[in-house]
C-alpha cells in the first residue's frame, strides 16, 4: 500500500508539470494502468532516487521562502537543490538541450526529471484517450453467457422452491388493501388515456347544410353566347337582313333589337374591317358580369290549392237550410225586422207599412195583424217562455204587446203580471214615459207603451226576458242606449258619454255583459262592474248588425261594406275571420241557438248560411265553412234582405226582405 501511494505521488509530480493540459482528475482513473505499465524496475529506480517529502498535498509556494521544501521520513529537512539557473540558462537549456521537451520539474523535490521514451509514449497514449497498456485489447470478442440457445446443461439445476407454488400472503394482503382502497374510492383507477388526437378543427362548428348550401348557391358567371351564323363574315343569305328589316332594325330601340348588330357579308376574311363595336361589346360583357345575380332567389313553388285550408265538405255538415220552403206574404212594404217565438211556433214581423204581423211558422198563415202608427223598425219576441210578450219599436215608441198566441194560460198569466204592477211610492223622474195601453190598443194586445225622446231603432231582450235594451242612434248625445226593466217599469241610461253613433246593442246570453256596436267598434261592457271590458276593432267602415253566439264567446258583425267579421273574444280584439261573401252591404246576421250555424242577409238579396262550429276546447279555433247561398228575395229599391233569424229548434232560417215577404229556408 505505501508503495502504491508513493508511485501515485510520483506520477503526480512527474505529470503535473510537464503535461499541463492533462488534469489530475482526468488522469486518476488511469493511475493503476499507469502503475501496471511501468515496469517494476523503473519503479524501484524511481523509488530509490526519490526522497520522500512528507508535507503532503499542500501548495509548494508555502515553502518558497525556505531553504527546504519539506521533510523526509526521518523528519530531516529536505533542502532545495541549489538552483543557479536563471532565465538565460533556462533559455539556453531550452535551445540546446534536445531533451528539454521531455524534462519535467518536480516541485516536491525541486529536481528536473527526464522522461524516458516509454513514459513519453504513455503520455501520448493517454493524451489520445487510449489505454495506457499497449497490450490491452479493449475490443476482445465477448462471450455471451446467457445465450438464446438452450443448452443441454442449465445455468442452475436447483429445483424450484415450494413457496413459488404457494400464493404469497403478503401479496394477497397488499392486493386486498388496494382493492379495499379502490372500493372505498381512496384510489382512483387510472384514467384511460385519451387517444383522440389533440388538434383544433377549425371547421368543426360549420354546419354541413351551409356548406352544401354554399355549394348549391354558387352561381357561375353567365357565359357569352357563342357566335353563330349571324356573326359570320360570310353568313348564309337567309341571315342577311332585307332593306325593310334593316329599316325596322334601325327604328327599334337598341334594347328591343333581337341582335345588336347587322349581319354583313364580306367576300373574304381579308376584307373584314376592324370590329367597330368592340368597346361597346366589352363594356356590355362587363355589365353582364357585374349585374348578374349573385344570389339565387329561393322561389317557393307552392300549389295554390295547398294554401287553402282543408275545410270539410258542406254536405258533411248537415243539417243546414238548403231550399226555400215557405213564403210569408202579406206585408205591403219592406219588412225591417223579424223574430221567432221561443217555442218556434210563431213568427213576428214588423214592416214599413205600419203593421206587425204574427205568422204560424209551419203553414205561413198570418194569424194576427196589429196596426201601429209608424213604420216598425224592430220587433223582438221575449225569450222567456213563461211570458208571452213582443216588443215592437216604431217612431219614438216601444210597445210591449201580448199577441195571445201559444198557451192560453201563459197569455193570461202575462196579462196578470202586467196588470198586477204597483206604482212605487216615490216615483223617479225618468227619461222614458211608461203608460198602460187602454181601449182599442188593449184590444189589439198592446199592454205597455214606452215613449222615448228620440226615434228608436232597435229593441233587444235580455236572455231572461226582464230587461229590454233599445237603441236611439244619435251622433253626439249621451242618451243613445237605454235599458228598461219590465217588471219594475224602470229605465236606466247606462252610458254617460257618447262614444259615437250606436248601431246596435246586444246582451251577453249568460254573463252580465253588454255589447254596444258603434260605427267601427264593438264595446263590451260589464254591467255589474260598470266598466269597459273589451273594445273590438271590427276593421270595417260601418257596422250594421251584430249577433252574439249562444256560448257568449263569439260575436259576428255585419257591415255595410260587404264584410262579416267573426270575433273570438278569447282570442283577440281583432276579427278572427273576415268573410267577404256578399256582394252588397250586410243588413242582418244571426246565430242559431243549438246548431253550429250562422246566417247573414245582404242587399244583394241573398242569405248566406255558414257552418260556425265553436269548440269547447279552448285550443281549437272556431271552424267556419260557408255552406249555402239562399236566394229568393227580389231586390226592390236596391234593398234585398233586411233581417235574418233562425228557428229556435230546427235548422231553419227566416229572412225578411224589402219585397215585403218573409221567407223560410229549410
Amino acid at each position: 500500500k505505501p508503495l502504491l501511494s508513493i508511485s501515485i505521488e510520483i506520477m503526480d509530480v512527474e505529470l503535473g508539470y510537464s503535461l499541463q493540459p492533462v488534469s489530475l482528475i482526468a488522469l486518476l482513473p488511469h493511475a493503476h494502468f499507469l502503475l501496471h505499465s511501468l515496469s517494476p524496475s523503473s519503479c524501484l529506480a524511481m523509488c530509490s532516487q526519490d526522497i520522500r517529502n512528507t508535507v503532503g498535498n499542500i501548495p509548494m509556494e508555502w515553502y518558497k521562502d525556505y531553504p527546504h521544501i519539506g521533510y523526509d521520513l526521518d523528519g530531516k529537512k529536505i533542502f532545495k537543490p541549489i538552483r543557479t539557473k536563471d532565465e538565460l540558462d533556462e533559455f539556453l537549456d531550452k535551445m540546446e538541450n534536445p531533451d528539454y521537451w521531455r524534462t519535467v520539474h518536480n516541485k516536491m523535490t525541486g529536481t528536473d526529471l527526464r522522461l524516458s521514451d516509454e513514459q513519453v509514449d504513455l503520455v501520448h497514449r493517454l493524451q489520445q484517450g487510449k489505454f495506457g497498456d499497449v497490450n490491452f485489447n479493449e475490443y476482445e470478442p465477448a462471450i455471451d453467457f446467457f445465450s438464446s440457445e438452450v443448452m443441454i446443461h442449465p445455468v442452475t439445476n436447483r429445483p424450484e422452491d415450494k413457496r413459488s407454488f404457494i400464493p404469497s400472503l403478503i401479496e394477497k394482503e397488499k392486493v386486498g388493501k388496494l382493492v379495499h382502497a379502490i372500493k372505498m374510492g381512496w384510489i382512483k383507477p387510472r384514467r384511460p388515456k385519451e387517444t383522440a388526437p389533440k388538434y383544433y378543427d377549425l371547421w368543426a362548428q360549420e354546419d354541413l347544410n351551409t356548406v352544401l348550401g354554399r355549394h348549391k348557391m354558387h352561381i357561375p358567371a353567365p357565359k357569352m353566347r357563342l357566335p353563330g351564323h349571324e356573326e359570320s363574315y360570310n353568313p348564309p343569305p337567309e341571315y342577311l337582313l332585307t332593306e325593310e328589316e334593316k329599316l325596322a332594325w334601325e327604328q327599334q330601340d337598341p334594347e328591343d333589337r333581337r341582335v345588336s348588330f347587322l349581319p354583313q357579308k364580306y367576300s373574304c376574311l381579308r376584307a373584314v374591317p376592324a370590329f367597330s363595336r368592340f368597346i361597346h361589346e366589352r363594356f356590355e360583357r362587363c355589365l353582364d358580369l357585374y349585374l348578374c345575380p349573385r344570389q339565387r332567389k329561393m322561389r317557393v313553388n307552392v300549389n295554390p290549392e295547398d294554401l287553402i285550408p282543408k275545410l270539410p265538405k258542406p254536405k258533411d255538415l248537415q243539417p243546414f237550410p238548403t231550399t226555400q220552403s215557405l213564403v210569408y206574404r202579406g206585408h205591403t212594404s219592406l219588412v225591417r225586422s223579424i223574430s221567432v217565438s221561443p217555442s218556434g211556433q210563431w213568427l213576428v214581423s214588423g214592416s214599413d207599412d205600419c203593421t206587425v204581423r204574427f205568422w204560424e211558422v209551419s203553414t205561413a198563415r198570418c194569424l194576427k195583424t196589429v196596426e201601429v202608427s209608424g213604420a216598425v223598425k224592430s220587433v223582438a219576441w221575449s225569450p222567456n217562455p213563461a211570458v208571452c210578450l213582443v216588443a215592437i219599436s216604431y217612431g219614438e215608441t216601444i210597445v210591449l204587446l201580448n199577441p195571445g198566441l201559444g198557451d192560453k194560460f201563459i197569455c193570461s198569466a202575462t196579462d196578470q203580471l202586467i196588470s198586477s204592477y204597483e206604482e212605487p211610492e216615490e216615483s223617479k223622474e225618468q227619461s222614458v214615459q211608461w203608460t198602460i195601453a187602454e181601449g182599442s190598443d188593449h184590444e189589439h194586445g198592446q199592454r205597455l207603451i214606452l215613449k222615448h225622446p228620440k226615434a228608436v231603432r232597435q229593441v233587444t231582450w235580455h236572455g231572461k226576458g226582464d230587461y229590454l235594451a233599445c237603441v236611439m242612434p244619435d251622433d253626439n248625445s249621451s242618451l243613445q242606449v237605454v235599458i228598461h226593466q219590465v217588471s219594475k217599469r224602470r229605465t236606466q241610461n247606462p252610458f254617460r258619454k257618447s262614444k259615437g253613433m250606436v248601431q246596435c246593442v246586444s246582451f251577453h246570453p249568460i254573463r252580465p255583459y253588454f255589447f254596444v256596436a258603434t260605427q267601427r267598434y264593438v264595446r263590451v261592457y260589464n254591467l255589474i262592474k260598470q266598466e269597459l271590458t273589451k273594445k273590438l276593432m271590427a276593421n270595417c267602415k260601418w257596422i250594421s248588425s251584430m249577433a252574439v253566439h249562444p256560448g257568449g264567446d263569439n260575436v259576428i258583425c255585419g257591415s255595410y261594406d260587404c264584410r262579416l267579421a267573426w270575433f273570438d273574444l278569447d282570442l283577440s280584439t281583432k276579427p278572427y275571420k273576415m268573410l267577404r261573401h256578399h256582394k252588397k252591404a250586410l243588413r242582418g246576421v244571426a246565430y242559431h241557438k243549438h246548431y253550429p250555424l250562422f246566417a247573414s242577409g245582404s242587399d244583394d238579396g241573398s242569405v248566406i248560411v255558414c257552418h260556425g262550429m265553436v269548440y269547447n276546447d279552448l285550443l281549437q279555433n272556431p271552424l267556419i265553412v260557408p255552406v249555402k247561398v239562399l236566394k229568393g228575395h227580389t231586390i226592390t229599391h236596391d234593398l234585398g234582405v233586411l233581417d235574418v233569424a233562425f228557428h229556435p229548434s230546427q235548422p231553419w232560417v227566416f229572412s225578411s226582405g224589402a219585397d215585403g215577404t218573409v221567407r223560410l229556408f229549410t
Partner: protein
Amino acid sequence: MSQLQARFFTENKKYAIDDVPFSIPAASEVADLSNVINKLLEARIADHKHVEFDFLVRGQFLRSSLASHMDTENISTEEVVEIEYVQKFTAPQPEECIMHDDWISSVEADSEWILTGSYDKTARIWSLEGKAVMTMAGHTDVVKDVAWVKRDGLSSLLLTASLDQTVLLWEWNSEQNKVKARHCCRGHAGSVDTIVVDPSRTKFCSGSWDKMLKIWSAVPTEEEDEVEEPNRPRKKQKTEQLGLTRTPLMTLSGHNEAVSAVLWTDAEELCSASWDHTIRLWDVETGEQKSMLTGSKVFNCISYSPLCRRLASGSTDRHVRLWDPRSKDGSLVLLSLTSHTGWVTAVRWSPSNQHQLVSGSFDNIVKLWDIRSCKAPLYDLAAHEDRVLCADWTDSGLILSGGADNKLYTYRYSAYVSDAGA
C-alpha cells in the same frame, strides 16, 4: 242488343195470355208492349176491346224503354225477362170543387159526408156533391184537425181539434140537421194539431204542440170531469164553456218537439210523428214507448196501411218515405218517393190497394203514387192554386184534398176496382 226474350204474365185471369217467351225489341216502351199484349189478346179472345196496360219488371213499373230500364235496374238481358202486366190505372176523375171561406186545414170523409176543418175557426159537413150541410162554430181559434168518430143511423159523433188548445166532441143529427157540442176536451197546453180515433171508436188520441199525446174517451156522457184549474176564474170558464169538460184518460210524453201527426196502427198501438225528427210507437195499455224511428227532418204527416203494413211519412223536405214500423233497428227507410218540390204535408194510403198512396205538398200538387214506381208518381193532380194542407182517401174510392186556396177538390178514383186481381 236489339231483341230481348220476355215472358208476360198477369194475375188478372181476364187478360191472361200463353206462358211462352217472346222476342221483343229492346227499345220498346210501354205503348209498344201494350200493343203486343192487345194483339195477343185479340188473337185469343174474339170480342177483345183495346185495353191500356202497364208493365212491371221485377216489381218496378216500366217508365222508360225496356233496355234503359233494365240497364238502370241492373237486370241481366241474357235471360228471359219476366214482365208482369196490369191494366193501366185510369186517371182520377175530378168531381167537385168545394169552396170554403178560408184555408182548409183538414179533411175527413166517409161514404156519405165530408168533414172539413178550416182556418175560419169552423168545421163544416158537406155532402159528397159539395153541398154545405152543417157548420160547427164553437172554437175560438183555427180548427186544425177533424175526425169522424161514429155514425150510427142518423146521429153521428165527430171531433174537431183547434189551436185554442181544445178538442170538441160534437153530436150531429143528420135528420134534424142539428149539431151539439157534447164535450170540450181540455188539457193541452198548446195547439192541438192532430186527432185520431181508435179502431174501436171509443177512444181518440190527440197530439199537440206542447209535445204531449193525450188519449181521451170518445163516448159522450152527461157527466162533467172535474177540472183542477184554480187559477182560472170560475165565472169566466163557464162563459167560455161549450159542452161538458172532459179530461184525458192518459198522457203520453216523450217527444222533444211538437207532435205533428198521430195514428192507431191497431187497437193497442199508437204511432206519433213529431218535429223532433222521430216517429214513436206507443203501447196504449201501458203508456210506454215501444220503439222509435229516427229521421233527419221534421215529420209533418204519417199514414199507415194495414194492407202492406208500411208507414208513409211526409217531412219538411220533398220526399215521401216508407218505413217498416216493426223493424227493430228503428230507422230503416225502405223507400223514398221523390217528385215533390216542397214540404210534404199530407200522405194517405189507399184503403184498398196496398201499393198506392196519395200525397199533398206545399208545391200545390197532389200526387198519386204506386210504390212500385218510386221515381215518378202515377198521376199528378195539379188543381190547387196554393199549398195543399190536407188529403184523404175514402173506402169508396174518393180522393180529397184541401189547401190554402180555400178549395176542396174531390176525385173519383176507380181504377182499383177494375184492377181486382191486384
